[in-house]
Each structure stands twice: as C-alpha cells, then as structure tokens.
C-alpha cells in the first residue's frame, strides 16, 4: 500500500540482448508487462527500421485473420472465447502459420467465389422460370383474343383472316426481368422510342430475389414487350440493356414453353442440391477455422507487438548485440532480470543478456500501482493531470474525502440506499458483469466507478441520518428532546403557528440534545430552512477549511521529498499562517459560538420599564439573543471596524481580548503576503550560485557511470531527450514574476475557495427541497385522497396510491438520484480538482505505459467494439 502514497520509484535501464535471444526475451517481458521501452530510433523512418519486413508479414496475417473473421460473422457463427492466452509463437512458426492461413484463406475465397457463381446461375434460372410462368398468362390472354378473333373472322371471310394472321405473324416480342423500381421509367422510355408502338405487359414477382454478390433482397418485375419489325426489336433490346433488364429466350409456342419450364425446374432442383452442399461445406470449413481463430489472432498480435518493440532497439556497432532503453519500476527489477534470463534460455543463447541501471535526471514516468478498488479514484485524479514523478498522490485521500463531500450534498438516507444497492449489485456481480462486455458507454462508465458509487451511497446514508432525511421525511428514533409546554388548548386552536422557545421547551427540562443528527421536531417547523441554512453553511465552511488546510499541509511532504526544505519556511509557513489566522479562526469562532451560548431564562431588558440587575445581565450575556453573528464579526475584523452589541447586556465580542487577538491575526496574515511574494526569489538570488555547482557534479556522475562499462562508451548517446533542466539560469525578472503570480493566486484563491465550499450547503439545500417538493406534489396526493372511511374509499385510495407511488419512484430515480447525483458528483470533482489539489499538486507528469500483451490485447478488443 506504500506505493499508493506516491508514484513508484523508476529506473532507466539499458538492456543488452543477443540478437538471437532478443525475440524470446521481449516476449517474456511482454508477458510480465512491467517495462516501458523508449524509442531509440525516433528519427528513423518507419520503413527503414530493422524488423520492418516481419511487421509487414504480421500485418498481412492479421488482414487474413480479419477477413476470415468477417466471413465467420457473415455466417452468424459463434467465435469461442479462449480461456488461457497462448504464448507468443517462435519466429520459426510464423511460416507455418502463414501457410496454414494462406490455405484457409484461399479455400474460403474459392468457396465464396463458387457460391457466387452458383448463386448467379441459380438467379438466372429462377428468373427464367418466372418469365416462363408469367408470360404464359400474357400469351393465353393473347391467344384467347386471337382465337375468338379468328373464329368470328372465319365466319365472315377467309381472306381477311389470313391477312390478320399475316400481320400477327410478324409481331415479335422479348421477355425478361427488370428491377421493380425501374419499371415506370422503363415503360416510358419504351413508349417514347417507339412512339407508342410497343405493347408492354408486366407482372410483379411476389418473392424477392437474392443478389448473388451482395446478398441483398431485390424485388423484380417480369415483362414482355410486343413490337413489330426488326428495327424496333434492336431498339427495344438496347433499352433493355440500358435498364439492366435481363432478357430470356422465350419460345412463342405453348408446348415448347411447357417443356422448357419442365427442364428449368429440374435444373433448378439439381442446382439447389449443389448449392446446399457448397453451403454445408463452407459451414464446416468455417466452424473448424473459428475454433482456432482467436488463438491465431492472439499469437499474431503478440508477434507483431514484439517486432514493433524490437524496432525501437539500437544495434551495437559491432552488430553483436541489441541495446534497449526502458523504464522499470524498482519493485519489478528482479522480475525483469528473471524474464531476460528466461528469454536467453529459451533461445539457447550462450551469452546471457544483462541489464544495466543508468542514473538520469530526466523525468521518469509516473506509475501508481492500482487494484480494482483504487483504480476508479486514481482515474479521477489522472483525468485532471497525471501527477509528477514521486509527487504526493491525492488519490489516496480522495477515497474518503470524495464520497464524503458528495454525501454532504446528497444527504438523504433513502436516495443513499438506492445508490448503495446499485453499487453493491455491481460489486457483487463484478465477475459476471465483467465477462459480458457491454457496448453501452454510460454503463461502462458506471461500472468502472462501481466502488466509488458504493462508497458514495454508504456515505449518503450516513449524512442522511445526520440531516434526518429519508425521502424528505424524518425518523423519530430516540424521541424528540423538545417538550411542548406553556400553551393551552385555546392557544392551539386560535393560532396557525406557535413558537417553541429553546429555553421554555428545551433547556428548562434539562434535556440533552437528540443523540444522532437533527432533532425530528424540525420537520414540522416552518423555519426549518432558516435553521438548516445556518447549520449547513457552517458545516460546509468547516469542512472546506479543513480540506484546504490538509491540502496545504501535503505540500510539506512534497517539499521534503524533493529536498526543497527551504520551501517549507519560505512558502508553506506563510501560506498556512494566512489560512489559519483568517479562515481557521473563523471556524474557531463558530465552535466558540456553539459552545458558550446556551438558552437562558430571558428578561427583556431592552424594555424601558424593566430594570435589570447585574446578575440578570450576566445570564443574558450568554443567552441566544446576545450571540453575535460570526460573519459580521469576521467582516469587522478584516475592516478594523466595530459594531454595537445587539442589545442591553450583550457584548460585541464573544470573549475578553478578542479584538486585540483579531487585530494581531489580521496584521500577521497581511504580513505573510510580502513574505510569500519576496522571500523565495531573494533566497534564490542569494544562493543561486551554489546550486549551479551542485548540478554539474551530478552530470559528472552520469558520465562516470557510463565509463565503468567499456562497451557502452561506443554506443550512441541514448536519446536527445536527455536535456538537463537548468533551474539556476532563470532570469531574475522571471523568478519575480512567477512568484508574484503564485502569491496572488494563492491569496485570492484562499478567499474564493472558502466561499466556493458553500456549494456544499447550496446543493444539499437544493436536494432536500427538491425531494420535499416531490413528496408533497406527488405522493401526498395519493395519501390524502379521501376521508370517507367506507369500502369504496379504500379501493380508490389504494389504487391511487399504487399509481402515484410508481410515478413518485420513477421521478425519484430520474431527478433525485440520477440528475442530482450527477450534479453533486461534478461539484465534488471540482472541489477536489480546484479547491483541494491546487494547494499542493503539480500534475506535470506522464503516465507509465508498460509494454504488456494484456494491455495490447484488451485495447484492441475495445477498438473492435
């Protein structure tokens, strides 16, 4: 757990690996997943790198696998998920994999090609069958007319009938199929080119036909165009090709047509059988491939990742070994050494690979080891900015402060219970839910933050009990501490509202306050909001100031760790003094006011006719009517003003000597500002020189370390990114400007941030009021329905309650839990990012991205989804 306090210590290491052992070593490191390689060939074009051919081969393999996967998906086959991922294959196995994949791909390609051919054949035959069947109708109609014609004609004269048949004999026709949406245009075109001399008959096909190459369903229409003359025939044919109509030979004689239909039918049946067999075969092939697919995919991806990493390595001048540079967390160093040894053994190389730690002043990546519980909180922090290397990690404190500040705004035990139930469901069913990967982005966000939601829910239940709010109703568990006294029946009957005085109804009976949270009597009070506002405002300022003081204190840990102890005196002390003397003092005044003022038996001394003795005045001095406003006291303190006490017997201040203390506090706090502004730049100016000399000696160390290992001297200098940052060279003006900005920012922000914590009160007020309104506007109607007391009113009342409860529950979920929850979440996030973290957090680091097969494979899965 110590690692979560700040990011882990990292080493920059050089790996010297024999070329023959390189592949297996990197494979081992990828399995271990604790090393971030640096690109040593950043200036080299991607195509000029050493293993570019291998990467290309892997790419090609991946393409083939994707094609096969697409084919399998087309067939709606299930690709089995593999439980244990295979290791990266040997470099020699790549050829085997290539040949087997090549074979599979060709087989599938051939099968698909065959299927397309067969299908287009099938389509043609089906169309021909339809043409023959449908045109049958046209011809019978035609012949029917012909027949009657000739019969009637024959009765009159032989000659004219012969003439008629003569004319009809020259009537030609073409028959075919055209897509249905083109029919109107087709018809018009035919009519135009023939000036109305073409006679078109058409019949729609009821069943859609399948396009062989795309598999789309197309609706088509059978047509037969009758015309006269050869010229018109060629024109009609041209139009047909223009409209992508397929023409089919159609004999004009009925008997021939019948025979043809028969022939087509038998051929269709044969073809169907062949098609089914091809389909079966294809299915079998794909099923067998599907079993292996995921395995191959993982292997190829791993191989590609390895070669990609190898491309980042440098070749030694003697070409005897590969040199890699990488960041390794110190805790994983042993594991990396073991992986290297393992890799060397696997490749049978005689010379072991070795690892050399190099000293560097370069910024290391930030690595916070997280588990499933802390990951969500770390993500909250990282989305603001990845912490600088070895800086205090605020995520640790966020685990408690985040849900707590959220709960202050979301304080309602009922809504908290809903949130807890939701979070608990996700945590308990974690494994099951993790397996069924969901595409829904919102669900994934909720699921990633399941522990945050659970904690937020639990804390909300707690604050709900403190506010005594459960769905905006109060629980009277311990019995209210207030007693109704001094009113008789006529008072109650005559007045809509009666005052309960803290003395006569509470303190007089020596009552102790309600044990936990707010006294339930407040639910019935008309001044509940006024009371709660003052209570919650004070709470939010108290928590806010505590939160900020904690943030400022954390900067001490940073100063000590980064060996800038002088900053504690020059920066931290004036900062914390400013905060403590002004705002922590205000918080202290709140507590003093709560403690020393207590309900007393009062006499109205402001009245002229009453004379009060000193004893009475002493009692009144600490009574509720004399309690001064903390805010007014604070404003007067800042402005060095004074205001008269609230009444006779009261005093302006809470305790003796308060005015002197206050003046001293303000003066010291104001004096902190110039200290903050000038002390550090002046110190840097004085001591700048000594710092510079320290720095150069550090540089010498690095070189010395390199000289100890003779092979390494020849290696080209690791990377251009090695530039040293020179703190001492900053110009004087720049230092002053920077410090000025920091000072102004800090001073102004302490004031504005304190005010900003009032959002805790504002949101909690809004939440409580909204849930109250929802109860009275919706559920109350169902409860106060009818007062008749007969059976009918029970039926009506309960059904009304049944319906309104569902509406109330839905609205509660949508508005109070979802919407208010999101807004409270956002405000909490802001309070952490801005008000808390600005006090100590730099966030200028970059995240440690280890070379790990697990991350690579998971990442690709996400992209595919």
């Amino acid at each position, binding site marked *: 757990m110590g690692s979560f306090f700040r990011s882990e210590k990292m080493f920059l290491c050089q790996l010297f690996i024999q070329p023959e052992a390189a592949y297996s070593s990197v494979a081992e490191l990828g399995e271990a997943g604790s090393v971030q390689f640096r690109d040593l060939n950043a200036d080299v074009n991607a195509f000029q790198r050493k293993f570019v051919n291998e990467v290309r081969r892997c790419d090609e393999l991946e393409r083939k696998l994707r094609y096969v996967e697409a084919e399998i998906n087309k067939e709606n086959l299930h690709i089995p998920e593999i439980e244990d991922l295979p290791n990266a294959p040997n470099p020699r196995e790549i050829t085997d994999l290539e040949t087997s994949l090549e074979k599979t791909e060709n087989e599938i390609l051939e099968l698909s090609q065959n299927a397309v051919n067969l299908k287009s054949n099938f389509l043609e035959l089906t169309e021909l069958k339809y043409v023959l069947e449908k045109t049958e109708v046209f011809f019978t109609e035609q012949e029917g007319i012909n027949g009657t014609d000739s019969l009637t004609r024959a009765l009159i004269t032989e000659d004219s009938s012969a003439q008629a048949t003569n004319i009809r004999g020259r009537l030609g026709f073409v028959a075919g199929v055209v897509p249905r949406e083109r029919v109107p245009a087709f018809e018009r075109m035919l009519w135009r080119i023939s000036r109305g001399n073409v006679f078109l008959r058409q019949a729609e096909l009821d069943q859609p036909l399948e396009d062989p190459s795309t598999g789309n369903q197309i609706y088509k229409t059978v047509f037969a165009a009758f015309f006269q003359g050869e010229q018109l025939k060629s024109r009609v044919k041209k139009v047909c090709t223009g409209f992508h109509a397929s023409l089919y030979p159609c004999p004009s004689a009925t008997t021939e047509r019948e025979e043809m239909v028969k022939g087509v039918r038998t051929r269709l049946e044969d073809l169907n059988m062949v098609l089914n067999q091809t389909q079966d075969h294809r299915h079998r092939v794909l099923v067998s491939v599907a079993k292996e697919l995921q395995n191959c995919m993982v292997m190829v991806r791993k191989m590609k990742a390895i070669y990609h990493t190898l491309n980042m390595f440098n070749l030694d001048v003697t070409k005897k070994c590969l040199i890699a540079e990488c960041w390794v967390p110190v805790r994983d160093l042993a594991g990396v050494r073991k992986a290297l040894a393992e890799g060397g053994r696997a490749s049978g190389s005689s010379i072991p690979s070795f690892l050399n730690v190099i000293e560097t002043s370069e910024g290391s990546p930030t690595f916070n080891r997280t588990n499933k519980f802390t990951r969500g909180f770390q993500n909250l922090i990282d989305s603001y900015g990845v912490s600088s290397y070895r800086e205090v990690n605020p995520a640790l404190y966020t685990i408690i402060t985040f849900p707590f500040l959220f709960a202050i705004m979301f304080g309602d035990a009922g809504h908290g219970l809903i949130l807890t139930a939701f979070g608990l469901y996700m945590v308990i069913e974690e494994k099951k839910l993790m397996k069924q990967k969901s595409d829904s982005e919102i669900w994934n966000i909720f699921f990633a933050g399941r522990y945050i939601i659970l904690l937020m829910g639990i804390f909300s239940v707690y604050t709900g009990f403190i506010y005594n709010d459960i769905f905006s109703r109060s629980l009277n568990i311990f019995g209210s501490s207030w007693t109704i006294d001094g009113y008789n029946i006529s008072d109650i009957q005559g007045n809509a509202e009666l005052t309960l005085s803290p003395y006569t109804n509470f303190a007089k009976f020596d009552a102790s306050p309600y044990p936990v949270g707010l006294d*339930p009597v407040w639910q019935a009070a008309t001044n509940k909001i006024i009371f709660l506002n003052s209570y919650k405002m004070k709470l939010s300022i108290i928590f806010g100031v505590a939160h900020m003081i904690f943030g400022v204190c954390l900067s001490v840990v940073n100063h000590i760790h980064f060996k800038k102890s002088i900053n504690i005196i020059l920066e931290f002390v004036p900062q914390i003094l400013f905060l403590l003397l002004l705002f922590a003092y205000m918080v202290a005044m709140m507590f003093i006011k709560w403690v020393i003022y207590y309900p007393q038996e009062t006499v109205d001394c402001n009245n002229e006719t009453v004379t009060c003795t000193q004893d009475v005045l002493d009692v009144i001095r600490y009574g509720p009517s004399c309690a001064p406003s903390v805010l007014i006291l604070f404003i007067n303190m800042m402005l060095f003003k004074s205001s008269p006490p609230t009444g006779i017997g009261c005093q302006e201040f809470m305790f003796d000597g308060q005015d002197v203390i206050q003046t001293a506090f303000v003066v010291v706090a104001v004096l902190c500002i110039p200290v903050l502004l000038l002390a550090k730049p002046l110190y840097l100016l004085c001591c700048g020189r000594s710092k510079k000399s320290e720095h150069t000696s550090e540089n010498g160390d690095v070189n010395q370390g390199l000289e100890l290992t003779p092979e390494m001297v020849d290696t080209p200098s690791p990377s251009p990114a090695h530039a040293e940052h020179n703190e001492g060279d900053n110009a004087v003006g720049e230092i002053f400007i920077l410090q000025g900005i920091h000072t102004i920012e800090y001073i102004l922000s302490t004031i504005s941030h304190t005010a900003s914590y009032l959002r805790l009160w504002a949101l909690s007020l809004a939440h409580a009021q909204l849930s109250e309104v929802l109860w009275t506007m919706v559920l109350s109607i169902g*409860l*106060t329905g*009818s007062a008749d007391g007969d059976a009918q009113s*029970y039926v009506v009342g*309960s059904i009304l309650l049944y319906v309104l409860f569902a509406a109330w529950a839905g609205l509660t979920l949508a508005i109070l839990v979802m919407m208010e929850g999101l807004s409270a979440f956002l405000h909490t996030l802001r309070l952490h990012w801005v008000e808390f973290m600005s006090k100590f957090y730099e966030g200028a680091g970059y995240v440690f991205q280890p070379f790990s097969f697990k991350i690579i494979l998971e990442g690709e899965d996400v992209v595919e989804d």
Partner: protein
Amino acid sequence: MKICGPKLSLCGLIISVWGIFQLVLMGIFYYVKSIALSEDLPGVESEGGFESPEDFYKIADRGYIQNAYNCWIAACLYIFTLVISGHQFYVNSRSSMNM
C-alpha cells in the same frame, strides 16, 4: 405468454420490490401514528377547523388507520405486479437463452 419486453419487466420487478418494502413500512408507521407522516392525512385540513381536540383526534386517528390500510393494499397490488413481472422476466430470459 409474453406481454412485455425484458426492460419493462425488469423495471416492473425493481419498482415492485421497492414498493413492497416502502409501502409496508409506511403502513406500519401510519398504524403506529407516526408524527412525521401527520402532514399527509386525509381530512385533517378541513376548512372550518375543529370543534374540540377530541374531534380532531378522531379524524386524525381515522386518517392514520385508513392510510395504513391503503398502504398495505397498495403493497399487495405491488406483490401482484411483482409476480407478473417476475413471470415475464422469466419468460424473456428463457426465450433469449433459446436464441
């Protein structure tokens, strides 16, 4: 027999479980005449006021009892809803398993 889809049946399940718990509890609280729920009683907001405290208590007590029964009847209706949506949920999950 399938009437509603998987989402609606899940929604019905959640609301009825919630409804049963809350309405049974509210019924008990009405039955023991909880002050916190006194604002939502039938009849106590009547126009002309009450003649005597006894009069008021009579109305209020009757309202408490009636609301308690109303809550319990509504809870029973939710048990009915729970059974229906549970059955629907079962049917839906089985039909999706078959697919």
